[in-house]
């Protein structure tokens, strides 16, 4: 591989890949993250859209408001909990983007609705 992929400033997408080929066109999906508009790719999970735009922090923990971001990407660690369209504790790594979604990164305040914990 002699040519480095052209990830422009603020763009962390892997456009070219020696094994996987070119990144296919995807329909743009408009979402809002902490009040800012952002363009995601149809079919991707929220965590990918955030990371592609350099947004790493998903939540802050109760103790010390310690910031957390994607750790496992498999729905196991819950470090990526965010609020989506008013619903708290949604896992950004598993939830697909949808047109018009309103996302707030979460400051450790969301209520956990499940039986665990």
């Amino acid at each position, binding site marked *: *591989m002699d040519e*480095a*992929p052209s*990830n422009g400033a603020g763009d*962390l*997408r*892997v*456009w*070219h*890949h*020696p*094994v*996987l080929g070119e*990144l296919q066109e995807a329909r743009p999906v408009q979402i809002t993250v902490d009040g800012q508009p952002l363009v995601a790719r149809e079919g*991707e*999970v929220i*965590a*990918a859209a955030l*990371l*592609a735009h350099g947004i*790493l*922090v*998903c939540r802050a*923990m*109760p*103790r*010390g408001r*310690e*910031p*957390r*971001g*994607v*750790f*496992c*990407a*498999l*729905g*196991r*660690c*819950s*470090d990526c909990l965010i609020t989506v369209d008013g619903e708290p504790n949604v896992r950004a*790594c598993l939830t697909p983007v949808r047109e018009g979604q309103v996302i707030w990164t979460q400051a450790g305040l969301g209520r*956990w*609705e*499940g*039986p*665990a*914990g």
Partner: protein
Amino acid sequence: MKTTGIVVIGAGPAGIAAALAAAEVGTSVTVIDEHPAVGGQLRWRIAPLRGLDEALDGLPACRAAETLHERLAASGVSVLAGAVAWGLFEDGSLAVAAPDGGFRLQAEKIVVATGSVDLVLPFAGWTLPGVLTARAAQIMLHLHRVLPGRRVAVIGEGLDAAELASDLEMAGAEVVLRAADPAQVVASGEGRVERVSANGERREADAVVIALGRQPDPELALQAQVEFGYSVRLGCHLPLRSELLETSRPGLYVAGEAAGAVDLAESFAEGRLAGLAAAGATPERIATAQEALARARSPERSAEVDRMRPGSLGEARPETGTGAPWTSWAEAAAGGGQDDTLARVALCRCEQVTVGEVRQAIEEGALTINDIKRRTRAGMGLCQGIFCTRAMALLLHASRGIPLSEIAPMTERPPTRPIPLASLVEIEE
């Protein structure tokens, strides 16, 4: 309650092989996977496959996953994707949370093929955004086509770490630091990773990938109270199995990395044998699958498997495991060294319990993982202990001298995942 023939939990290589084999015999088979697509770890790896069959060898792992999917589709196996099996109960019933609700399944036979999770150990700064597991990095790079960072440090010295370093470079990231021992790594930055240092080297970096290897995830089988033993090679407890991969609970099989298989070829061969055995295939067919499995295993691995039969109590030797990096991590975590940075680091990410707090609980008398859990809440968070139990065991071992083999795993209770309340409610009905 739905009743069905054979249920396979996990659609990775082992689960797929089990399902295909059972379907060959003519049994009704359902395979459940919590992810939307089948293939397990193959889905996000791009390394070329070796040692499976002619049609698959040489394909990038993710393409092989697609081929395996086609085989499943052609075989009549019903695939339930996006569904988590979150409880395996005393009566043998299985609780499932699917996208359209929860239900219970009563299966004639169950094959647990739940694979492995990434092995992680705490280090300074490991909770900062930008620190990811090997799988998370591969998922971002290859499934979502996003770089986790441009300048990345990779922790680990085995094959997984080598694969990750190559994956990152292929996608256009720069690997700025490699470190073998997590205890030596310090990641720092304002609200995210900005710098990483290890062994006197210091680099600007925006991501750190933990690629220390994989650890079996046999949670569901342990929930069903099967007999388990200790694997010296992996430094953890595993379900004991008969030659046909059946646990001490009749009709419950475990195959693949969930049971300690070391690689793809072994996982696949185990899956096939478990599937045939569960479906009651002819002795000839089973014998052929056993021979194939024997070929897929190294002599050392075969010897370990032979020692870990039900009724054998497994092995009990006072060892930490396979040496570095665990030994040095355990010593550093137990303290006494000059530089005690680890004391302030979270051992349990979910409940934010530090290494120092767990150490203190041990000093105050905690002798088991359940003791530590009760005293500190470590391991009681949403990850259900998968990312901290190993560290707790190592710390107990290093500070009390308790052999790892005698540190029983945490008591496993359903649910294995945080699941929506609706799934529980429907089950009660």
